[in-house]
């Protein structure tokens, strides 16, 4: 299991990285921490002609608070965000979910934006970004655009990103004391989630986002919070996610988890 041959570009500015993407399109891949891309390269599920390493770009290594949002740059490692002193106050959901993202040995290298770009349906970072109503900042040589998380994820490892674009940053709305909760079931802590759920209290009720079941993280608003109505709504959500049997768990078990964890988390954020 060795990667196929590729050119390696160590970008010294963002413009250089964007130029390579403009010229080489889908033959080029951005590598940041590499914790999702390297397994794909090793297994030759991805065979780019050129890899563009953006981890030396100081400008992308920033966690910035601006207008009620926390912008996390493309070169910010998961470990760095987890160690950010304001995390518990500003992004409590991330402080709950990040310890479930891989292991300490992969969080030390993997980035927040890399996980979003990879768009694994069971990954925690896309799930939290969706649950909080965050945005992805995409950048090409021509322009910068923002896409809401709910429009960005299109399927299993499929996103709205164009071949000439990279994720410059992702923006999480600051929590501002908003109640939130996170729970995950996996065979081994840090492995891919069988079901992962994130709940955030909103003005109308609760937004519940589920990963690991559908082809992409999926969120739904729950405003009827009475007992039997909530059970019905959660049951409908669990079925709508179209769970499938796989090597790790049955569809029925996944639906059970969605109903059970969903109920627990909604209770937790509304009590």
């Amino acid at each position: 299991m060795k990667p196929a041959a590729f050119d390696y570009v160590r970008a010294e500015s963002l413009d250089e990285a964007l130029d390579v993407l403009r010229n080489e399109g889908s033959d080029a891949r951005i590598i940041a921490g590499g914790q999702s891309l390297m397994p794909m390269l090793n297994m030759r599920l991805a065979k780019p002609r050129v890899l563009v390493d953006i981890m030396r770009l100081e400008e992308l290594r920033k966690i910035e608070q601006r207008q009620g949002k926390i912008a996390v740059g493309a070169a910010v490692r998961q470990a760095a965000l987890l160690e950010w002193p304001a995390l518990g106050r500003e992004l409590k959901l991330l402080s709950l979910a990040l310890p479930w993202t891989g292991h300490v040995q992969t969080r030390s290298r993997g980035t927040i934006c890399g996980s979003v770009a990879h768009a694994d349906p069971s990954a925690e970072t896309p799930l939290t970004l969706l649950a909080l109503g965050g945005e992805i900042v995409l950048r090409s040589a021509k322009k910068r655009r923002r896409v809401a998380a709910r429009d960005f994820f299109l399927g299993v490892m499929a996103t709205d990103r164009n071949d000439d674009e990279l994720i410059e940053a992702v923006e999480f709305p600051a929590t501002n004391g908003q109640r939130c909760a996170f729970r995950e079931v996996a065979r081994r802590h840090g492995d891919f989630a069988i079901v992962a759920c994130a709940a955030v209290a909103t003005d109308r009720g609760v937004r519940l986002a589920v990963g690991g079941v559908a082809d992409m993280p999926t969120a739904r608003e729950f405003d009827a919070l009475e007992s039997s109505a909530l059970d019905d709504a959660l049951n409908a959500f669990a079925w709508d996610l179209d769970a499938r049997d796989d090597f790790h768990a049955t569809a029925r078990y996944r639906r059970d988890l969605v109903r059970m964890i969903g109920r627990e988390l909604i209770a937790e954020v509304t009590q």
Partner: protein
Amino acid sequence: MTRLGSEQRHRIRFTLNGEAVDRICEPRMLLTDFIRHEIGATGTHVGCEHGVCGACTVEIDGSPARACLTLAVQVEGCEIRTVESLADKQGRLGVLQSAFRRNHALQCGFCTAGILMSLDALFARHPEADEAEIRDVLTGHLCRCTGYAPIVKAALEAAAELRGETKIEAVNA
């Protein structure tokens, strides 16, 4: 812009266990293969080669990381430590290694090098690490021999010794 062509071998420099490395390799070469085949330091093991088993764990700039999910060209200028750094120049086992030996925290030994590096990084950063933190770090490693209990015991013992709370006679390798 630095563009390293796929067909050529390129100069790469970093520090391995305190010593300067200055060699050449192809862009696609994994750090595991560079360390083992180019340098000949075979203490770092290769298990699954996709980041699951943890056998290849090394320290990159003080943090534990999967060498199989890292390209050699990515660590240009970094400080790498491998299991070879844990014993002293005379080949005597380090504190952590001695604790593993006393507690039978390894049987076949294939996963051990990676686990040692993860724990070494943990204790360097959190000398007070408790059992829960040790077990959290161990979730990133697969050991199919021990059942993990002796590993946890050895880690707790080593942590206490490193904090100077106990003194255990050195075991010669």
